[in-house]
């Protein structure tokens, strides 16, 4: 039930912000379309913890702020390597261990790795991620495991 309500609120906010017309006719048409979407989603049985990860909400903002900081720092480092010559880079392909249990946690971790420039998650096999990094120092940072710990904490 709470997932349905959350989906309703999300869709309403999305519709209101995208439309910008607030006459009664348009609002009721919007309301009707949201209800239609809810009915269809309910019949498809896709309204659950996976599509509406409410349990992540309290911690996700702190994690996002930390991730933005990381993205900015790694952007600066990659831009530096672009303007220096090829010689400054040391591409590495390796596998790293992950400690997340749930699919959602693994997804967040792999996506965070790919979002920070300089590291790309190539494949996920059981509890290992194949990572390609521009500089081998990035792999050491990942192995040190601060991002891993933060995502695992997010999961609980």
């Amino acid at each position: 039930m709470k997932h349905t309500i959350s989906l309703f609120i999300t869709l309403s906010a999305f519709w209101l912000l995208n439309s910008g017309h607030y006459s009664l006719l348009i609002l009721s048409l919007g309301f009707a379309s949201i209800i239609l979407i809810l009915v269809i989603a309910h019949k498809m049985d896709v309204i659950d913890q996976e599509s509406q990860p409410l349990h992540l909400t309290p911690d996700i903002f702190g994690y996002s702020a930390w991730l933005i900081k990381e993205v900015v720092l790694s952007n600066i480092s990659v831009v530096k390597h672009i303007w220096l010559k090829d010689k400054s880079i040391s591409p590495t392909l390796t596998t790293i261990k992950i400690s997340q249990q749930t699919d959602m946690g693994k997804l967040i971790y792999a996506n965070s790795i790919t979002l920070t420039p300089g590291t790309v998650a190539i494949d996920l096999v059981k509890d290992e991620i194949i990572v390609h990094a521009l500089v081998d120092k990035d792999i050491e940072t990942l192995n040190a495991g601060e991002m891993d710990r933060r995502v695992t904490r997010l999961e609980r």
Partner: protein
Amino acid sequence: MDTVITISSGFFILVGCFLCFSGGVGLLRFPDFYTRMHAVGVTDTLGAGMILIGLMFISSDILVFAKLVMILLLTLLIGPTTSHVLAKAAYHNGLMPKALNKLKKNNDKEANSSTL
């Protein structure tokens, strides 16, 4: 106040343009497929992000602002997904990173020089 907003928005857009340009340069300059992908990562995270933040400063009302935020979030979701799909396809079709050998040579050189 207006001048401050205009100047800071211009600053953010300028930085965004520089980052997108750097991404393009990196795309041409790096040696193989995987390293080029990292260069593109700069363009689609902070490059696009900075330009959108610059536009948010000069957006006239809350609706335009909200749409820019939506575009930013969508970009941040789509960018890594497409990079990952490309990398996975390349990896599973047997494309190995070219520049790894060079790294090994460099390491050997370092090892030699340290023994000397």
